[in-house]
């Protein structure tokens, strides 16, 4: 019993301690000219899908939820966003080579189809970001059209 108390106290102290460790915030007011929506004519309904389901981790501007203030949530999110942006940043999509754009479009298609993206841990707390079958079809149709024209 005494051991348990000590363990609990240590956990509590660590939890309190890590709250003071700062994290970088992924936020920017600037929408660069290389943004996907700027370089291509994206239909409104597809734009909404990208913005609600992808942009939090794949752009320079994250709409942080309130619980991001609590560690270790901040860390986990920072890691996801960093990784997400290095794979694909829609704000910089226009600066990618045509070949890279094509391969990114193909990856989006397959990952969305397999349900790998958006991440399950993301849609657990952002249920509106979960793609319905209709939304998937809209997204796929538009990307297929882009792939033909590129």
């Amino acid at each position: 019993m005494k051991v348990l108390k000590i363990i609990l106290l240590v956990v509590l102290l660590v939890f309190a301690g890590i709250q003071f460790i700062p994290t970088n915030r992924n936020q920017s007011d600037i929408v660069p000219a290389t943004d996907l929506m700027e370089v291509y004519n994206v239909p409104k309904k597809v734009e909404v899908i990208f913005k609600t389901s992808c942009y939090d981790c794949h752009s320079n501007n994250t709409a942080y939820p309130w619980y991001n203030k609590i560690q270790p949530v901040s860390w986990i999110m920072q890691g996801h966003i960093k990784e997400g942006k290095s794979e694909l940043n829609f704000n910089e999509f226009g600066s990618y080579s045509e070949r890279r754009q094509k391969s990114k479009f193909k990856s989006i298609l397959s990952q969305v189809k397999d349900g790998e993206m958006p991440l399950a841990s993301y849609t657990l707390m952002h249920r509106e970001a979960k793609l319905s079958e209709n939304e998937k079809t809209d997204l796929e149709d538009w990307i297929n059209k882009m792939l033909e024209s590129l």
Partner: protein
Amino acid sequence: MKNLKMSGAAMLLMVVSLGFSQETAKMGHDHSKMDMSGMNMDEMQMALEFNDDNLANAYAHYVHIKTALVGSNSNEVNKEATMLAVSLKDVKGSEAAGFHVFGIESGADLKSQRIAFSSLSDEMAVLVAGNLKSGTIYKDFCPMALGGGAYWLSSEKEIKNPYLGSKMLTCGEMQEEIK
């Protein structure tokens, strides 16, 4: 699942430590019934009706929080959030919504309350979709809210922005009709 349980336990712990008494819970319940009848009387268009009374109750409290945010009344927001937390307990699949309500309750100022409210709004939209017997709920969006834009729900077509205070009361547009 384990994580969810743990965060649930943490939530409980914090709620208890914040000192919400049973009394406030009871008050919240009575109050909710009163306000529901008031809301129905005010309805101009086709009356908003839900398949689930508990959800109707919760939505009424959500609207109260929104109204308090429109008026930038932080204390009122907090009170209504406590009531919403109580009524959400009877709504199926409302765990995430309940978590965001907790975010509003623990928000120290209007800014953090509004950030949590935007998450709650997204979640409420999912909850009410497909559960309306009659009437329409409008999903409104303001691109200037909270830096990257934010949504809220409303039963009226008129835009009353809960995010930016009295200066930007009418900023926003209807994006979706939930029926």
